[in-house]
């Protein structure tokens, strides 16, 4: 993809995944270049009482710094942020996070749609949404909003997904620009 005129601090990568996405996330984190200058936000469906060991595990794999997002954390390029369990993670227009413990969306908190939609409103065409393996349709509406704001949307190739339902739903309902094999996702992000 050709670099456009956006500066890196005006871009944001948001990745959503559910059942079967954890190994893919780990692969992506392991292979992202340490020189990446774009913030990456990861929203994974997980149990509400899970502790912070997931971010520790992710930090262990990644060459970039991984942090479970706290309320009002500024969004810093080159950081990987993980949505905390039992909260929705929202992106504010002045480029920081806020948390929300309102009702579950698509049976999920954090909901991928909530993060994707607020990211699109904050980062507009600088938003890149990637939807991975999963068993429900959370994230599809969010991808659509990203697309409406001029951002780029991509999904994990459903044929490579442990649970293809989520990326397949996106492919069925939207015009997805990029359908990526697992191997290709880190390179895609690095090239943004």
């Amino acid at each position: 993809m050709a670099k456009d005129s956006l500066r890196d601090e005006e871009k944001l990568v948001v990745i959503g995944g559910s059942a079967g996405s954890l190994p893919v996330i780990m692969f992506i984190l392991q292979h992202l270049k340490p020189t990446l200058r774009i913030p990456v936000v990861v929203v994974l469906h997980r149990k509400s009482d899970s502790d912070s060991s997931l971010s520790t595990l992710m930090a262990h794999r990644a060459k970039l710094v991984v942090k479970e997002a706290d309320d009002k954390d500024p969004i810093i390029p080159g950081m990987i942020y993980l949505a905390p369990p039992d909260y929705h993670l929202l992106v504010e227009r002045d480029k920081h996070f806020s948390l929300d413990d309102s009702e579950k969306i698509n049976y999920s908190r954090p909901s991928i749609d909530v993060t994707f939609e607020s990211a699109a409103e904050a980062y507009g065409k600088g938003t890149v949404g990637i939807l991975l393996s999963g068993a429900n349709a959370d994230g599809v509406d969010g991808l659509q909003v990203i697309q409406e704001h001029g951002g780029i949307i991509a999904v994990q190739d459903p044929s490579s997904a442990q649970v293809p339902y989520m990326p397949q739903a996106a492919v069925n309902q939207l015009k997805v620009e990029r359908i990526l094999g697992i191997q290709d996702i880190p390179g895609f992000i690095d090239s943004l």
Partner: protein
Amino acid sequence: MDNAIGEQEMALLLSDLLELYGYDFTDYAKASLKRRLNRLFTLDRFPSFAELRYQVRNDAEYARRCVEQITVNVTEMFRDPAFYHALRTEVLPVLATYPFIRIWHAGCSTGEEVYSMAILLKEANLLHKSLLYATDINTQVLQKAATGIFPLSQMKQYSENYIASGGKEDFSSYYTASYNSAKFDEELSRRMVFSTHNLVSESSFNQFQLIMCRNVLIYFEKELQGRVFALFDESLEKLGYLAVGSKETIKFSPIANRYRQESKEKIWRKIH
């Protein structure tokens, strides 16, 4: 798919709520607030933003509904059991040394946390000398809280939370089940005082040894968070405790240097 309520529409509604009804949402975190407004718009099936705005401006009853719906009233009993465990083992033994205990639940919503606290106090044999002040911006949730009636379907989860928090009793001994609801013992609610209070616009009304305000500050912008922390500081006795939600912190607030976090949990103690 595009939201009916964007930045401009939200600004109009917020200024209506402030000018006509005195509710100040202008320093609430915007991304969440906008979602809540769009949710209300869909929920109440307005054909256009103009009609929602007309209704808010001309119908005080509906304006109240609007406030109730855009504030988040999701809560549960013994949420984050490790936090309640810390209250049991680290905070209550200190509070026990006072002749009289005053606790403020700020933004208590439907009251699940207040009843959880009353159970802790009862088990520590402190309930008889405690008063729990429970406040919220919404009248309706306070009325619900005062009844002490919660959905029976939640009790399994609450019972698990209770046990994980170090509870040793049979959780079902605290309520009477009938049909789909669980009514908690009046022995618990007898020590509670419910009252409306708006953290954004109202001032301190008493002195407390413990203030609980969990998952309320996340809805505020940073500057407003600072003002609310100052209000808590004013309302807290020296050596009192301030407890916030698991992803909230007083660390970067203007009052941070007078407080020390003595627990692994999000509980700070006023040391100056």
